[in-house]
């Protein structure tokens, strides 16, 4: 089926004298310890004339795109290698690589790279809220460490002394609970809670949670 679709793309490409791409979209699920993903986008010059790849641009400085050569004869194949370096990013990431060719200079081909980067330290919820005038009861934030990791919370601090934070270990190395208590909820207030971990050892992660009285 995949082969048939590729052949169909080649046919479509030849009809318009463009590059025929095996796929223009790829999806990856990464683990917390991964630092980057590399995706190859294969193509064939399906037209009757040589095609030059004039420019390859990425949507983010965190993504590079490498090309072995720029000129492709009819029937010749090649690939663009995209490397996305996470550099602390987590969650769902969407990157685009724009390819300009002489075959269709007005309409670049957009290659898409979807990556889901699993979080080592997950904060739920990321914010606790009080309405102005509400009882200043404590509210909790759960801190959960990913299955294949073990992390300690080295410190937890609130940048607003009127919103105090207290940490409890639920399961050693795996689960914690941070309780945030405002002195009063009579006035609007805001706090950022900084959660410092010891994982990964070479570059320990710091996470943030928020408290708002609105």
């Amino acid at each position: 089926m995949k082969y048939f679709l590729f052949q169909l793309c080649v046919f479509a490409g030849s009809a318009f004298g463009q590059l025929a791409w095996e796929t223009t979209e790829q999806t990856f699920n990464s683990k917390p310890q991964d630092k980057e993903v590399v995706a190859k986008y294969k193509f064939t010059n399906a037209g009757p004339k040589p095609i030059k790849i004039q420019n390859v641009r990425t949507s983010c400085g965190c993504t590079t795109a490498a090309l072995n050569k720029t000129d492709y004869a009819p029937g010749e194949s090649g690939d663009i290698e995209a490397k996305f370096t996470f550099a602390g990013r987590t969650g769902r990431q969407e990157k685009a690589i724009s390819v300009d060719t002489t075959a269709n200079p007005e309409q670049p081909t957009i290659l898409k790279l979807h990556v889901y980067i699993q979080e080592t330290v997950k904060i739920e919820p990321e914010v606790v809220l009080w309405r102005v005038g509400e009882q200043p009861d404590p509210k909790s934030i759960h801190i959960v460490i990913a299955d294949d990791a073990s992390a300690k919370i080295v410190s937890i601090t609130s940048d607003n002394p009127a919103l105090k934070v207290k940490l409890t270990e639920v399961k050693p190395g795996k689960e914690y609970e941070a309780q945030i208590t405002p002195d009063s909820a009579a006035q609007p207030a805001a706090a950022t809670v900084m959660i410092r971990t010891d994982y990964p050892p070479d570059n320990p992660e710091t996470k943030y949670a928020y408290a708002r009285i609105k």
Partner: protein
Amino acid sequence: MRLVRQAQLILLAALLPASLTAAFHPRRPPWFQPALAQGEEMLPTVLAWGDNVLWVDARSAEEYGTDHVPGALLLNLESWDQLFPKFLDGWAPGKKVVVYCSAGTCELSREVAERLRKNGISSVFVLKGGWEAWKTRK
């Protein structure tokens, strides 16, 4: 017999202005109402909410920088940690939050909306048709 003919004439007389209204009236109701997914809203509904809306742009910073709904806050999953506190500062309880992305099929707006709801932000909606619906509004 005469009564039937008179009724037919009245119907015919009414048909002409009714057809013209259906074809050309700027606020004519649509023939087909597109189905809305849960948590989605159409642009006319959102516009009817007036100032009680906080627009959230779930597209990339580059797209947001090129153009966006006036007053919209940038909040995407890519830079969530940096943007979420700014969203919290701009948000107020009671305001309806409307998230949009770059096309009707874009999943990012749904994911941003879901993450906001998980964080206890109420009244979060996704704009049906996304940015394109805003751009082509009449």
